[in-house]
């Protein structure tokens, strides 16, 4: 499996993603510079975390118009798996590949901590083999991670089971105290209606080995790879 990691000026989790992916059997992964115009030949695409373009204007607002993004949009529309982590999630929302937006944390503080998230959907390509209620311990590090969507969008997201992860406490209770940034309905990660584009604020890339405090992030990447293997076998 070949997985592209898109590098924007200001990406800073590209190396974490590369290390995480190369640590999985059968995965080839490499960087693709944002000035490139094609993602043909890659099986999946990662938009890593960081501060693309210094977060100028709005987080992800300028990266969204990078030359590579046209190809990201095309590949996403054709069904290729795309995962956007942190700044990558912000870029996916700005690009209109995911609904809603990420705004300043309610507390106004940058949050940098380990959080617990609850898997809400077990049949997405990113959470296969994880029953609903599975808890994943993942780190967050962001200033603009408060997920916002209007009432109607929220209703659609819930009805179509597009909310993949919610912030919860260590017993799995989705409670206001467990919400690190004020996200509406404790939303930590969502997918599109076609379920091939996933955006999340927590960093699975920074939680792929026990010595990093958690290896739960690895399960998300392994689920992606598993989905790709299954799809290729079926083709």
């Amino acid at each position: 499996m070949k997985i592209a990691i898109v590098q924007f000026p200001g990406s800073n989790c590209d190396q974490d993603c590369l290390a995480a992916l190369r640590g999985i059997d059968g995965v080839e992964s490499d960087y693709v510079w944002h000035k490139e115009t094609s993602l043909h030949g890659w099986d999946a695409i990662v938009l890593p975390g960081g501060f693309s373009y210094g977060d100028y204007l709005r987080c992800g607002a300028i990266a969204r118009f990078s030359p590579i993004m046209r190809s990201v949009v095309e590949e996403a529309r054709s069904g290729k798996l795309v995962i956007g982590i942190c700044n990558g999630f912000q870029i996916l929302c700005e690009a209109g590949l995911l609904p809603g937006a990420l705004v300043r944390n309610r507390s106004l503080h940058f949050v940098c901590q380990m959080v617990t998230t609850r898997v809400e959907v077990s049949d997405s390509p990113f959470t296969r083999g994880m029953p609903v209620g599975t808890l994943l311990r993942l780190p967050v590090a962001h200033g603009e991670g408060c997920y916002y969507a209007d009432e109607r969008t929220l209703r659609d997201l819930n009805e179509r089971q597009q909310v993949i992860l919610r912030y919860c406490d260590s017993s799995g209770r989705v409670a206001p105290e467990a919400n690190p940034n004020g996200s509406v309905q404790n939303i930590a990660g969502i997918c599109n209606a076609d379920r091939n584009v996933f955006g999340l604020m927590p960093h699975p890339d920074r939680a792929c080995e026990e010595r990093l405090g958690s290896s739960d992030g690895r399960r998300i990447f392994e689920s992606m790879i598993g989905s790709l293997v299954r799809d290729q076998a079926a083709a």
Partner: protein
Amino acid sequence: MKVKVIVTPKETVLDPQGAAVREAMQHLGFSGAREVRIGRYLEIDLEGDPVEQEPKLRELCHDLLSNPVIEDYRLEMPNEKK
């Protein structure tokens, strides 16, 4: 010729920055602010005919300068009164 773009958070979007500023104003003895909303102000120095460029500017306001999911914008052309 300068055009101005004023971007403000939509009514439905929480503005914690504005709330913090309102609180600071209260600390300074000013209790007359019901709400403070913080947006963004852009000044764009144009070359050429502003009228001709207005449609493209509106497009840019919508696609780049604001995020319609969370923000509203107002484009002020040079000949317009506020």
